[in-house]
């Protein structure tokens, strides 16, 4: 990275802090609710910057376990292999890929989601 600090994650944190302090107290209640959505979205972006590349690489490895011949493992390819029935539904590597990839997605989108919390506890 050629960029100086603050890092992109630190910049977003600064924005979130600003919104939650100076902006929040100026807002009527219906916009405070919207502001919560805004800060949630910014936190998704932070987690994706932080974890996205690593989780996507892991997902590619899991997809290769299901589709051995693949050159470019992707969600599109995995979806297509299920759709075209080229993969049996009870194949263990398929179930494992679906479980782990989905956990990775939710860990960025909403790590406080009840089912995710239950599964990682």
């Amino acid at each position, binding site marked *: 990275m050629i960029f100086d600090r603050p890092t992109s994650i630190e910049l977003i944190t600064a924005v979130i802090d600003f919104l939650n302090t100076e902006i929040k107290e100026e807002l009527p209640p219906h916009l405070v609710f919207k502001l919560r959505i805004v800060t*949630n979205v910014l936190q998704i972006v932070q987690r994706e910057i932080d974890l996205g590349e690593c989780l996507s690489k892991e997902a590619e490895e899991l997809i290769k376990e299901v589709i051995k011949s693949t050159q470019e493992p992707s969600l599109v390819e995995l979806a297509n292999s299920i759709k075209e029935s080229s993969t049996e539904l009870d194949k263990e590597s398929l179930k494992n890929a679906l479980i782990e990839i989905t956990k990775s997605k939710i860990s960025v989108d909403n790590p406080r989601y009840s*089912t995710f919390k239950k599964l990682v506890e």
Partner: protein
Amino acid sequence: MIKMSEGLSVLLSKGLSELGVSGSIENLEPLTGGASKEIWKFNLVNSDVSLKMIFRRGSGTESSLAIQTADEAKIQEEVRKEGGPVPEIVLVSNSGNDLGDSYVMKFIEGETIARKILRDERYKPALPLLAHQCGEAIAKIHNTPLANLQFLPKKSPIQLIEDLYNLYQSYQQPSPVFEYAYRWLKQQNYGDFKDSLVHGDFRLGNILVNEHGLAGIIDWELAHIGNPIQDLGWMCGNSWRFGNYKMVVGGFGEIEDLIDGYNSVSEEKINAELIKTWQVFGTFRWGVICLMQAYAHINGSVNSIEKAAIGRRVSETEIDIVDLLFLGGN
């Protein structure tokens, strides 16, 4: 808004008096409703009697999944005859009339907001009763004779699955979990149930709750005719437990109570396994609805932070499906 309410007040008064319902319209106020519906409350005052009323009107821009607003009233009249807890209909207007596609119903006191129902002290005594009451009420909906409801769309389980899959595919955002769910759902046994009136969106948010439990069922816009068990699976999905994931029924109740309530009214006896299949369907359905909302933003038809954010809730439904299918989730 004041001008608008004056105009509406005159039309309501005229419409009601044509039906022989006299009285003056007072305190007409808009309530926050769905984006595509107007909801107003008012008092109908007759000498010393004041009755609270609700006016509900469609905008003509409802989702393609929704039925006509006036048809919701016709359904409520039929369910009421079965003893279902629904508001009494006072007036029905079709889209060609001055009041538009709308109806007036008697107001039922009750809370709809899930978080309040689940957390406020006031509703604590109601929560242990609610799953059984919902089971009874859903069975009454399903027992409703269909003779006067032939205008409703009729959908077999396979048609519902195909419609949902086609809608998902139209967004061209491939989800391996949804592809899996689609193939899995097509292989399941849906039982030999008679065609029934299905509410289509029975959950906290669309029911009125007071301290005694279930007070009313509202929001009939997704009603149709089909396999009855889908209503039970829908309300048991984790998407509608509002974080209380251990309470399978709507975040407040046990599935045994829901089933007992249902079986106490219905001829058709049901079990948890049948409900679970529909839970997978319902979770997939909510996932596709999230996708639909997100793509309204992505395609530029609306610019909305809420709709953009909901796109990242699709993965909540994917993890719920994975949990139900592979990890012993309930």
